[in-house]
């Protein structure tokens, strides 16, 4: 009786220790997972997911602090890919984070109305707006991700979203 008890208790303890050891992701694994998630995100850097950019969102996903349906620019395809990668249940994008765009859009500055305040330049997460203080600004369409972050700061509302050139 005693040997049996000892054996099983010993084995169970060892299993418990192993389970505790394996319960945390080692850093390297964590970083690779973040990279892998980041690769699936559209890199719009719009922050609509409530995080400061795509990589912060990826980190939150890897930590289990965010859901897979928070990326409107990525649309349902991205949500499905994230669900598949993370082994979670796929869900459509949550409309609370924004509507899924039907076509790629880029920002466009009405250069006649622009007063050269540089506020949009500071807001652009990918440095896609060029210009200087008191000079007209313009959006480099090829580099614009369509995040719309430049629209709220504009004091004269001269920025509009237009379909991306092909």
């Amino acid at each position, binding site marked *: 009786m005693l040997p*049996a008890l000892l054996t099983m208790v010993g*084995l169970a303890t060892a299993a418990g220790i*192993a389970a505790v050891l394996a319960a945390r992701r080692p850093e390297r694994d964590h970083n690779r997972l973040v990279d892998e998630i980041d690769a699936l995100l559209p890199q719009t850097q719009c922050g609509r997911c409530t995080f400061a950019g795509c990589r912060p969102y990826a980190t939150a996903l890897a930590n289990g602090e965010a859901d897979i349906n928070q990326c409107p620019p990525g649309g349902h395809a991205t949500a*499905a890919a994230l669900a598949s990668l993370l*082994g979670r249940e796929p869900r459509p994008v949550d409309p609370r984070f924004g509507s899924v765009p039907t076509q790629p859009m880029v920002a466009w500055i009405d250069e006649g109305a622009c007063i050269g305040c540089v506020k949009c330049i500071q807001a652009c997460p990918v440095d896609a707006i060029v210009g200087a203080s008191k000079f007209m600004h313009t959006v480099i369409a090829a580099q614009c991700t369509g995040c719309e972050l430049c629209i709220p700061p504009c004091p004269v509302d001269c920025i509009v979203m237009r379909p991306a050139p092909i």
Partner: protein
Amino acid sequence: MTSLLLVLLSSVLVTTVVLAHLPQWRPFVAPTDVFGGARVIAILCMAAVPAVSLLGWLLVRLVLGPWHLEYLRTPALVAVVLIVVPLVELALRRRGTLLTQQPGFALVMSTNTALLGIALITDLRAATFGAALLLAIGAAAALALLLLAFAALYERLQQADVPVAFREAPLALVTAGIMALAFMGFSRLIQE
């Protein structure tokens, strides 16, 4: 030679069980990368199967045997699986082999039947440590290969025009059945 073939035969039984689980690794998902998942599990098996089998064999010979506790063999081997798999998983994660699953029980869940089965067979069949080693390594290789083969086959079948009623699990079971049929060819390979 003979023991290797024996191992192949033995692993068939357990593998069929594992394979029936395969579609469930990524529940509810259009399985975009079943093969990628299977590759990770195959690597895990390559490492865990020999470890579990040998530890189990030693445990039975050195602890359970002398104390006449053979009736505890199955629960003891389950415990060995529960010890080894998380540690192997940890080692893989340290190496950076991508495991997207959250750490915890997922991998144990999907591999325990196979590991336990192979450990039991090793324990029953191997008389010496050398034989146990050979059996364990052979079983690990066979299991890993079969997993990969079945995952690749599963991915191919995803795109086939399969009658709706037979999609996913039914077809996986039929396939596993035909596989078992194919491996019947190895039956009586070793007359003991």
